[in-house]
């Protein structure tokens, strides 16, 4: 893919009109780190969407609102009820963290992407503006490639992520060979723990699946079990034994399954170990 031109609109309205005018030829760009992986042969006109006020993190009481062009490096700082720092710190390399945006990581979802898996587990909504302003639950947003939800003229404005409440925890784990490498497996879990037992869980996995997936069978299976790594692992293995995973490079079916099950277990257990103790 080649960029044949670029435009720098000065307002959101201008950006939306421009993208509508350009149609399939327009490509909204913030960090642009994913351009390297776009395989379309068609030339595109880049529309720079930085500087339009789409960045920043707001604390809206019970949820955080994160602007789509917020840099991943800005997500690394810890706040009350904030857990996306865990994901941001593990994403790629320091340079990429300072270039990539959270929106860029979830508008075109590559198998190795970090934030789709984390957001599926955390739950929340994507705010899309342009032709019509709407909120899309993450369960729907990540059902297939999110690009299907965007018409020319639409932009991802922000994501809204619920804060963890008391006794909720979040764990994020990925398996990757080098910092700059593609993830082999990513897993995230939001758990509610009461009396040392998992009361509720949302579990998602990526890289080893075509698109990030919630594992509702695992979610059901871990309910009521003790916070113990071996117990959790036993349940995860049983719940996922019939699943087919995308094979890890140069590895077989058994090793892939073992690695996936271990990473899922780690994510759930880490979530149980990092509970929000405050109301």
């Amino acid at each position, binding site marked *: 893919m080649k960029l044949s*031109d670029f435009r720098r609109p000065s307002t959101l309205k201008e950006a939306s009109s421009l993208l509508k005018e350009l149609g399939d030829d327009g490509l909204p760009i913030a960090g642009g780190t994913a351009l390297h992986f776009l395989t379309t042969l068609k030339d595109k006109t880049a529309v720079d969407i930085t500087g339009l006020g789409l960045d920043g993190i707001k604390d809206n009481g019970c949820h955080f609102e994160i602007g789509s062009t917020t840099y991943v*490096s800005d997500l690394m700082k810890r706040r009350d009820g904030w857990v996306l720092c865990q994901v941001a710190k593990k994403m790629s390399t320091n340079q990429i963290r300072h270039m990539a945006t959270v929106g860029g990581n979830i508008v075109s979802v590559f198998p190795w992407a970090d934030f789709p898996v984390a957001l599926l587990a955390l739950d929340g909504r994507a705010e899309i503006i342009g032709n019509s302003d709407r909120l899309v639950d993450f369960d729907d947003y990540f059902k297939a490639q999110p690009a299907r939800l965007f018409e020319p003229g639409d932009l991802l404005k922000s994501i809204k992520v619920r804060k963890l409440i008391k006794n909720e925890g979040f764990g994020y784990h990925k398996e990757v060979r080098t910092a700059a490498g593609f993830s082999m497996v990513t897993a995230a879990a939001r758990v509610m723990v009461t009396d040392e037992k998992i009361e509720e869980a949302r579990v998602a996995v990526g890289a080893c699946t075509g698109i990030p997936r919630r594992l509702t069978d695992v979610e059901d299976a871990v309910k009521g079990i003790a916070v113990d790594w071996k117990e959790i692992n036993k349940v995860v293995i049983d719940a996922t034994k019939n699943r087919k995973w995308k094979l890890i490079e140069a590895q077989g079916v058994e090793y892939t399954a073992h690695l996936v099950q271990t990473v899922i277990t780690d994510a759930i257990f880490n979530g149980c170990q990092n509970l929000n103790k405050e109301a």
Partner: protein
Amino acid sequence: MENENTILGAIQIGFTLNGVEVETLVEADEMLIDVLRRDFNCLSVKAGCHEGSCGACTIIVDGKPVLSCLLRGWQIADKDVWTLEGVGSYDAPHPVQQALVDNGAVQCGFCIPGMVLSAKAVLDENPVPDDDEMRHAMDGNLCRCTGYEKIWDALTSVIDANRKGGK
């Protein structure tokens, strides 16, 4: 909405390079690394992999370490850009440069510009990072020669000196 400064398909951009305001023409698809090397003779910016994996092309833009092989030239319009050419000098090297020399941390030297800029970026923000923070900040810079030990010794010596100096 047309580009006002388009000349023969190229766009005129201005930015600050190593403290000096500059201008150049860039095409929409031109990579920043090529613009810096061709138009401004910033040969310290090395093309190691052209895919954002090695860190040899690291520069500093608005205080942040970024990969010039993944950025288009127009993406740094109106920004403050630093390459190794603007960091220290032969007579007055930056502490990181001196430390790398003092610790024998330079073999072929290809990775060093990127190493210096990544280190400078984190130390400008926090002169005394702990080990985890420093390692995390350097995780995007690869070296094929040294095995990293001497580079690490050099960086920790700078941090120690900063700590002793009360920074």
